[in-house]
């Protein structure tokens, strides 16, 4: 194959990954993201690795393939598979063509970032990983920034089409507003946008923990860009198109740890003086790296991987709960007075426990995007600082659909593990708590029962209640054993500002009992006659 054609090939592969990954986050009409998510995300490094920690199954070996790929060809992951990498290329392009210049690697920063990320992760906090990991950042940018724009466009178009009597487009309700994740996503978009228009892949080579890790591996890669010193006329074109700023044409060296395998240089070299070769040519090591430090780093990474695999972590306890979204506009006849006492947030079914969930979730928000009920919303600090932005069940604007298992199917990192429908329907993520003093039946002496209406197991049932003449009042009662914590009751409960019924999370998910199903007694009115 002509070396020059490697670049278009790279661009094509990157475009496919970028397009498909973006589709997963933007598929608001649910036309297929769910079914293809596994395949599309199989090679995403961090999610796949986290998934592997959970269960070393075949479906979670994508990161091993990436490692092998890196050892063979260098960081091609960064130039083709990583959606944030591709996004940076797009943004860089939009910012106009620019000339790059070789710079020294910022080794201090990148190894410090990687080291800290690993150390924190092993200590049980995914904070830095969540903030810097590229796939999750891409996901948050799409689901927190791009998706709302898309919805707005859709709703506008739907409005126009409706005037013409066409209802094929429908308006989509907004997801819960999550200012923190929107802010973080915007900050990251601005950061990578600014860096990529000015300095190419500087993010990848200083801040991205995945990039740095793969960079260490790619120092040992077999096929990499090397100079064929005899052929080089030192025109410097290669250096000017190297967005990793890792080619020093004067020294005829390529820093393999930073090269992202974009093959721009191959395409531009008029003399074919750059090769993708397995033979060790001249400069291979890269800027001022001593073997001692290299060993230390590899040891550190390997060690922490081992540690993490044993599951050593301790999620910080959830802080005080607060609901970010404002309550829907209702005019309550009277404000309720007893605050809910939530001692634990509610993590999605399949996440097993808060601890498991927070230690595996990278806050990519794929589940938030895919949740058909919109009950999943990015948290603020309900899971603690290190769990910020990790999704939780927010019953403010929705409840978890009894039959639905979408989040557990789609989560790429194993934070939410697959559940069968039967299992999901008995997974108790929390238990409903009833506050009688807030209940409409108690305060107003009128029937309400919205909670019981929504309850799929009838864990919330209505029992006779003392009342005034002529009114058959009933008031809720909770059977905790069969409650699954879906939040139907809390979502439906009309009292404000405090709910009369709310779900308190189970720090460790439990198995609810099956609702007892009695045979219906034969009824007198099943005959063919009319009772009137």
């Amino acid at each position, binding site marked *: 194959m002509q070396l020059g054609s490697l670049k278009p090939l790279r661009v094509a592969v990157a475009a496919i990954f970028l397009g498909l990954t973006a589709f997963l986050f933007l598929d608001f009409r*649910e036309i297929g993201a769910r079914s293809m998510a596994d395949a599309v995300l199989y090679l995403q490094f961090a999610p796949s690795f986290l998934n592997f920690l959970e269960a070393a199954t075949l479906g979670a070996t994508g990161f091993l393939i990436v490692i092998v790929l890196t050892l063979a060809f260098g960081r091609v992951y960064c130039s083709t598979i990583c959606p944030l990498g591709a996004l940076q290329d797009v943004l860089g392009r939009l910012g106009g063509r620019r000339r790059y210049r070789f710079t020294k690697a910022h080794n201090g920063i990148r190894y410090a970032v990687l080291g800290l990320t690993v150390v924190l992760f092993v200590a049980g906090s995914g904070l830095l990983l969540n903030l810097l990991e590229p796939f999750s950042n891409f996901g948050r940018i799409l689901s927190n920034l791009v998706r709302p724009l898309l919805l707005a466009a859709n*709703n506008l178009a739907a*409005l126009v089409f409706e005037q013409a*009597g066409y*209802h094929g487009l*429908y*308006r*989509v*309700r907004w997801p819960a507003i999550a200012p923190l994740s929107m802010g973080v996503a915007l900050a990251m978009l601005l950061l990578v946008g600014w860096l990529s228009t000015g300095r190419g892949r500087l993010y990848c080579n200083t801040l991205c923990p995945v990039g740095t890790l793969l960079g260490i591996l790619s120092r040992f890669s077999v096929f990499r860009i090397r100079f064929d010193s005899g052929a080089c006329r030192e025109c410097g074109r290669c250096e000017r198109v190297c967005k990793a700023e890792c080619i020093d044409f004067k020294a005829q060296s390529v820093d393999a740890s930073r090269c992202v395998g974009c093959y721009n240089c191959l395409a531009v070299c008029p003399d074919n003086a750059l090769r993708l070769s397995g033979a060790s040519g001249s400069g291979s090591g890269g800027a001022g790296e001593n073997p001692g430090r290299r060993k230390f780093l590899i040891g550190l990474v390997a060690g922490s991987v081992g540690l993490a695999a044993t599951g050593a972590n301790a999620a910080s306890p959830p802080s005080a709960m607060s609901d970010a979204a404002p309550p*829907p*506009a*209702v*005019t*309550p*006849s009277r404000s309720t007075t007893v605050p809910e006492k939530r001692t634990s947030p509610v993590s999605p079914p399949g996440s097993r426990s808060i601890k498991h969930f927070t230690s595996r979730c990278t806050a990519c928000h794929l589940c938030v995007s895919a949740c*058909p*009920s*919109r009950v999943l919303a990015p948290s603020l600090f309900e899971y603690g600082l290190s769990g910020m932005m990790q999704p939780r069940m927010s019953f403010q604007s*929705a409840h978890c*659909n*009894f*039959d*639905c298992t979408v989040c557990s199917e789609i989560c790429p990192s194993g934070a939410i593990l697959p559940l069968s429908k039967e299992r999901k329907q008995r997974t108790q993520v929390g238990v409903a708590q009833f506050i009688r003093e807030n209940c*409409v039946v108690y305060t*107003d002496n*009128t*029937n*309400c*029962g*919205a909670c*019981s*209406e*929504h*309850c*799929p*197991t*009838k864990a919330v*049932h*209505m029992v006779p209640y003392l009342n005034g003449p002529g*009114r*058959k009042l*009933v008031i809720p009662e909770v059977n905790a054993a069969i409650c699954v914590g879906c939040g139907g009751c809390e979502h*439906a409960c*009309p*009292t404000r500002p405090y709910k009369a019924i709310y779900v308190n999370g189970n720090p460790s998910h439990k198995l609810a009992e099956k*609702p007892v*199903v*009695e*045979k*219906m007694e034969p*009824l*007198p*009115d*099943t005959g*063919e*006659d*009319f*009772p*009137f």
Partner: protein
Amino acid sequence: MDRRDFLKKTLSGTIVAGATLAFGKVGGFWNAAADAAESGKTWDLVAVRGGGPDAMFDSAISAYGGMRTFVSRGSKVVVKPNIGWDVPPERGGNTNPKLVTRIVEHCLDAGASEVTVFDHSCDSWRQCYLNSGIGEAVEKAGGKMVSADSKGYYREVSVPKGKRLNKALVHQALLDADVFFNVPVLKDHSSSMLTASMKNLMGVVWDRWYWHRNDLHQCIADFSSFRRPDLTIVDAYNVMKRNGPRGVSVNDVVNMKAQVLSTDFVAADAAAAKLYGVEPSDVRHIRLAAEMGLGRMDLQNLSINRIKLG
């Protein structure tokens, strides 16, 4: 059985139905004439038992003189079934899809320019439309399913006789319609005792919380003064007798094979309550609506056409 077939079948049915078909082309004129000709035989209520949801509707609507009694050529029809829950038809949580389909077919046959179907569901709406079987059935029959899931679809209206509920956000499809069919499913309800026609109208408004918060039964009755459905068709084919309104399993359901039609939704609810097994006056919103003069619950004084099939 396709549309032509059932038209033939109804032709051999009642005289009234036959006349509808024979003179159907002249639409409005004929309706007026028929009313005069069939004086005394405009039913307050038509009740059917013993057939499938579609067959029962065929005969019941014939008893009313056919669909043209309600739908004139070119009119816009809204059909409001109960599609509140993400459960399959056999669970009785939603209106039977066969009934909805048949209503849509009749409307189109009568010359409706469009038939729109929606419900502001409780579970996520697309799952409800899908798993209730109604979404697909309606579209096959030529009707239009529209979303009710976005506040943008609703417009504010005032509720003339409302005591607790004076204003509501109502789905624009209903506001723009010429003809309005209310097609509830009859079932148990944890707090309003039973769900039938008046309760079903909670699915045309945006803000249900307000109702629950402000004397549910009164709000249900209040809203009925906003717009009287042109015809209410209560689906009592599969009736959820307990654990309503969502139900826990098929064991909550009794196959009752019944249907009630009335232009008076209070009467429809009263008959439905009887079918369900309670006294109409025990259901507070029925009593309130009757007291407000929105309809009649004194079944013994109504002219009722009782039809038994099969």
